[in-house]
């Protein structure tokens, strides 16, 4: 549980850094339309930063299927377990 929280904090930091919003609160229902800087470019940066920071590789099919931040969080949790 603690590790899960840590991942959540790490992900929030990555979200803030990639989308350049220091006050961004990571929520499961967060979508691209809710964040001004979230487009196809920053989405790639986001995936790249998460993979590098957590030492995981997110499969392409999973990346395509993400509908919101919750899907991404679930995928990261699954891959880091």
């Amino acid at each position, binding site marked *: 549980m603690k590790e899960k929280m840590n991942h959540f904090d790490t992900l929030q930091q990555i979200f803030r850094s990639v989308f350049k919003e220091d006050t961004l609160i990571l929520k499961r229902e967060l979508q691209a339309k809710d964040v001004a*800087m979230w487009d*196809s*470019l920053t989405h*790639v940066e986001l995936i*790249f930063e998460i993979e590098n920071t957590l030492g995981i590789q997110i499969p392409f*099919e999973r990346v395509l299927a993400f509908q919101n931040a919750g899907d991404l969080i679930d995928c990261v949790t699954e891959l880091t377990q």
Partner: protein
Amino acid sequence: MLVSLAYLVFLSVVLIVFYNIPTSWRLFFLLSVSLLFLGYYHFYSVLFLVGLTAFTLFIGKHLQDSIEKKAASKTIFYFGLLVHLLFLFGLKYVDVHAQGIGLNIASGTFQTQTFLVALGLSFYTLQNIAYLIEIYLGRTKVEKNYLAFFTYNAFFPKLISGPIESTRSFLPQLKSLDQSFDWANFNYGIQRIFMGLFKKMVLAERLLPLVNNTFGLETPATGLTCWVGICLFTLQLYFDFSGYMDIALGSARLFGLKLSENFNYPFRATSIADFWRKWHITLINWLTQYLYYPIVYRFRQWKKASVLLALTLVFLLSGIWHGIGWTFLLWSFCHIIYLSFETLTKSYRVRLSQKMPSTFYTFLSIFITFNLVCLGQLFFRASSLENAFDLLKRVFSFPILERPTFFAYLADGGTQEHLFNIYSTFLLVGLFLLFEKRICQHFFSENLKVLSLFIGILLLMIFGIFDSGAQFIYLQF
């Protein structure tokens, strides 16, 4: 094709028979009439459609078998892909009428009367390729209902110019054609078809002569007049193509089938990226899913460069898909430059938007986006590079604004009748664009709007152009 009395009679007869035969016969019936429809316009196109669809099913089955047996699936996959690309490239761009066989570069430029070798090929080829990719990636299973798959490719409302459907959204609908006649679908269908006819016969057809005069080699228009003429082509193309889509979607709905939307009010786009989310949506979705994302993901360690690379390849391919020629290549380059610029300046633009009043920023963004799109479409429509650059030169030549004869050049001369025609066209187009969302929401309804339909038909009869003989622009692609 879809704008003729013959089509409306054909559609009515097919519809009556469809709802009066046993449900188990409906799929076969839809396939038969679709092939008949295609064969009526071009017999050999039927052979290509049937041949390539059968080939796709054959390859798909062997591909899945080899994946299950862990055999060499890559070879089968690439063979299937190659054959489709060869047909797509060969039939679109090789001029078989020329002495010897060579690339038909000249016909790659904008010609609405180009001879079509295989109708609909550009669209069902993309569907077939997507089907093979999905099987190869293990995201879908091979389709065992061959009749449904043939109808998926051949269904007559979408056969010639799309929308490009995915097997996931359209095949399940074809496999459950057991619904009884539904007034809600009927009302929606006929109102959508009416809207398509209105866009094509009133708006697109009235703009056609103005656009032809602008792009004609003899045009004396300069300055702002010339730019207005260039912009009118983008509007004409939109009304023409989205009108076709309305007729296709409306026709499909009469059978209880829902096709994908291809347009979402593109002239409200606030950036070029936003524009491409609203214009020819099914083609862009296809390119994004099967080209853009795989490239970006494969080279994601390059960060921004991976996006720029993917954008370049996607728009080069999109340009080639529309035609081989310098004009299409320049159209591609315009959009590559626009989107690269947007990608690289995103954070600056976000900061700028926070400093400006939001309404002003939105209007400014829409204005800039529209003009940039029109500049790109200039190359899309021009008959040659010389034609395109000549028009650009005219835009920047003086006087920029010739007030007394401002629109005369677009109107076959300056007589009062010509000018009246032009101003009535501008009024109709302007009002339609201004209230487009409301008009569409009103008509794309499952309730019959008797009074609105009556007024609309009256306007169609008064302002419609019925004898131009012009085809839909996208038939040539």
